[in-house]
């Protein structure tokens, strides 16, 4: 829209067209030039430049074209910049059913609605007693206080597709507390619960179930809407239009490979000095782990107590045991006992408790696990060399230290250590659990406690086109979806944003509209369970 066009339009708005001009305007081709596919890269060829030029020219031509409307069809309105709204001066048209609002007894429009209607040729907006051109409309209405161009593009796109689009007002979403109250209500009437199925992903976590249930409550509270919605037999996800705009369902489970423990390993290995040092110390100590051992083994001797001469009446080692015990030396006994005869052991052997110990299944399992990794400590030759507890404990401590030392220093001595110590035995399932650094999360998990940044917010409520006939602005009912607008060049919403917005929206799914120079694609995020091998 060049400047001369604007002045022409200003002029013409008060002008009557001659019949020939009118005829020309009426018979003008209504075909919108095809945008076609984008080329992947600028190739620098003449052909590409020509095509681009032609496409641009068509575009400019279309935009600069004079819009001819019947004066009677135009609703007159005035722009009130202080309130950021457009007040209607003449009665509203059919659009009033789905757009606009009343304030101070006047019919008003939001700027984006006014702009859309201007583009459709339904509205003429005056500012300072002069009519605004469409270009001026873009300039005046779309500012930081009202709405960005991205938002308007999404708004216009959805409107043109026939959706009812209203601004999203967070205060009109029932709070968590209200939802909880409604939960109780819905419990009282269980019959209702089966009535509709949420398009929300199947509840797999507890939170989700609760959310789902609260959603029912919200629905029931707004009686009028429910009836409307119930009349609409179409399942929510059979809507073709939203689907066609390439929705890409993404799971919100980031893949564990993202954080690769190997990175730290590589980094450490790159530094030659640390590696060399670590290895040397490891080898020098590990090569001859017990420099003092040879000497030790020579003077192993026997433990302090010689249990071959100190005879305990041990019934356990039944095979090596004499059939009867010699009578003990009387000097070892209290005086009153005097001397006693030998003791026959055999009858006692038969009287020992050999019963199986009763154990619960869990205990049995634990026992079995332990037996698998557990051997007689005395089979170990080093343990056999120990003569007393001090030596034994030293050995254990040395071993645990060595176990730590055996581990490559460049891996274990840094601040970041590997997730799993291979010397520790654990079940495959446990291991899988251990190495999944980024835990899977449900969309609603912990969302209630998160705070959202101001950067991201839900902009629009979307109602399906086929509900337009019954749509009431006063009781809009549950939206089909809520829209959050992102720019293609801007940042991608993070998990926190996803969670907070999903929680804010409650049972209504949030769709992310990404605007890329006029191309709009829609994304939504769903809970997705990573398949898990239960056999672990």
């Amino acid at each position, binding site marked *: 829209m060049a400047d001369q066009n604007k002045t022409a339009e200003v002029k013409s708005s008060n002008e009557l067209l001659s019949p020939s001009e009118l005829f020309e305007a009426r018979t003008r081709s209504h075909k919108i030039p095809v945008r076609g596919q984008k080329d992947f890269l600028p190739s620098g060829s003449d052909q590409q430049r020509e095509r681009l030029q032609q496409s641009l020219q068509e575009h400019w031509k279309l935009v600069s074209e004079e819009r001819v409307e019947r004066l009677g069809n135009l609703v007159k309105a005035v722009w009130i910049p202080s309130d950021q709204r457009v007040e209607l001066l003449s009665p509203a048209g059919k659009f009033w059913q789905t757009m606009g609002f009343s304030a101070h007894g006047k019919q008003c429009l939001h700027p984006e609605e006014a702009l859309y209607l201007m583009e459709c040729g339904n509205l003429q907006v005056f500012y300072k007693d002069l009519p605004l051109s469409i270009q001026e409309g873009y300039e005046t209405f779309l500012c930081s206080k009202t709405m960005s161009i991205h938002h308007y593009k999404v708004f216009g796109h959805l409107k043109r597709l026939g959706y009812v689009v209203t601004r999203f007002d967070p205060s009109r979403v029932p709070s968590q507390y209200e939802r909880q109250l409604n939960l109780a209500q819905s419990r009282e009437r269980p019959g209702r619960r089966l009535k509709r199925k949420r398009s929300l992903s199947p509840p797999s976590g507890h939170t989700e179930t609760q959310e789902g249930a609260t959603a029912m409550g919200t629905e029931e509270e707004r009686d009028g809407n429910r009836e409307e919605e119930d009349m609409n037999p179409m399942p929510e996800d059979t809507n073709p239009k939203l689907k066609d705009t390439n929705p890409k369902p993404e799971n919100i489970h980031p893949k564990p490979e993202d954080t690769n423990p190997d990175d730290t390993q590589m980094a450490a290995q790159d530094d030659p000095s640390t590696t060399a040092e670590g290895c040397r110390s490891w080898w020098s100590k590990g090569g001859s782990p017990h420099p003092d051992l040879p000497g030790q083994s020579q003077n192993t001797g026997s*433990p*302090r*107590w010689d*249990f071959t*001469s*100190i*005879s*305990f*009446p*041990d*019934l*356990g080692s039944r095979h090596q045991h004499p059939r009867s*015990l010699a009578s*003990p*030396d009387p000097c*070892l*006994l*209290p*005086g*009153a*006992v*005097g001397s*006693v005869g030998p*003791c026959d*052991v055999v009858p*006692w052997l038969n*009287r*020992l*408790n*050999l019963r199986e*110990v009763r*154990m619960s299944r869990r*205990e049995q399992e*634990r026992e079995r696990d332990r037996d698998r990794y*557990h*051997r*007689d*400590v*005395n089979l170990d030759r080093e*343990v*056999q060399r*120990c*003569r*007393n*507890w*001090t030596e*034994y*404990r030293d050995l254990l401590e040395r071993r645990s230290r060595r176990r730590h030392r055996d581990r490559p220093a460049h891996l274990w001595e840094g601040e970041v250590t590997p997730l799993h110590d291979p010397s520790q035995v654990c079940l495959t399932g446990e291991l899988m659990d251990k190495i999944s650094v980024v835990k899977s999360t449900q969309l609603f998990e912990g969302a209630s406690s998160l705070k959202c940044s101001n950067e991201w917010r839900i902009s629009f409520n979307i109602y399906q086109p086929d509900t337009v006939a019954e749509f009431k602005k006063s009781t809009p009912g549950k939206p089909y979806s809520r829209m959050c607008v992102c720019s293609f060049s801007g940042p991608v919403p993070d998990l926190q944003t996803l969670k907070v917005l999903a929680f804010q929206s409650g049972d209504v799914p949030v769709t992310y509209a990404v605007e890329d120079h006029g191309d709009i694609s829609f994304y939504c995020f769903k809970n997705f369970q990573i398949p898990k091998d239960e056999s672990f």
Partner: protein
Amino acid sequence: MAAEGPEKTAEEGAGAGAGNGGTRYDLEKETELRFEVDAGEKVQLELLTGLAEIFGSELNRNKKYTFGPGSKVAVFTWQGCSVSLSGKTEVAYVSKDTPMLLYLNTHAALEQMRRQAERDNERGPRVMVAGPTDVGKSTVCRLLLSYAVRLGRRPTLVELDVGQSGVSVPGTMSALCIERPADVEEGYSVQAPLVYHFGSTSPGTNIKLYNKLTSCLADVFSQRCEVNRKASVGGCIINTCGWVKGSGYQALVHCASAFEVDVVLVLDQERLYNELKRDLPHFVRVVLLPKSGGVVERSKDCRREARDEKIREYFYGFRSASFFPHAFDVRFSDVRIYKIGAPSIPDSCLPLGMSQDDTQLKLVPVTPGRDLTHHVLSVSCADEGEEGSPVCGFIVVTNVDTQAQVMTVLSPAPRPLPRHTLLIMDIRFIDLK
């Protein structure tokens, strides 16, 4: 007792009644008279001729010993004797079939070790007695301690059985230096025992604390051995609780390691014997001993009554006759009440990086309230929130007045309380008698 086969059952000497209204029993060499006392009854025992002992403590001739309701007694003689019983017994019979000779041989071996320790200027044997419930662990301990004391040794009893403590009130772990054989009627003469607060009658409620207190006792005992030669040579005998599976078994192994035991006596269970042989180093002698046929299984009620009796004994003395406890008010503001170990909470609710273990040894302040009534509280020696201090005494809360912020306590000593740190037990005592 059907299994007792060939023994002569009771009444063999009944005809020869001693003329004092009792039943006379003539015991042969190495036999024992077992009797149980009915509820609400009393039985008097008198040694007429010969020598006899009860759990290692010798009987005086012509002295009347009285046993209260629920007592289960075995009078053993090495050389033969005659005794008379008067009063109503539930059962009374003579049995030839006792493992006393095995126990005596065990004692002889331990005494041999003490001699060697004395000679080599080393420490004496440390013995752990293990086994399932109701196999006579405490009795064997008492027997071995009594024999040792009768030979002039000064062994130490380490009582780790939190359910049925022979030394202090239940719910505690203690060590006691034995200087004379246990009294035939009263048991050990308890003078200056070292008592630690555990707080519950089952080690399973807080196995971490149980193991920590075991280590604590072991440390204190080792320190004592360093300064007291006699105690060092005497060694110790550790009585454990009858939980021998899972964590209970781990606690046994931990105890063996903490005390550096030399001998483990396993009573009755071959399975436990094999396991301990496998898990303890070779220089620890693990010995399997049979249980006595006279050992009776105690019911839950019976155990509870025994616990109650033990607490009553703490406050009122033996047979509620010798002590006169005081009752007085304690203001909430004057004391600090703690519980050891926060209740376990799911890991997901813990702060990041904190594990469940950290909470089990923690002192958690308890707000005084009505639910404190009848609980036994330990008066900790700790001055200001320090951990791992022994207990200097016990009180029972008999009444709580939340309005006046005051509780009435039963205390063995008059006011004021010696210390202000109180540890609450799960155990309750209702002062009825």
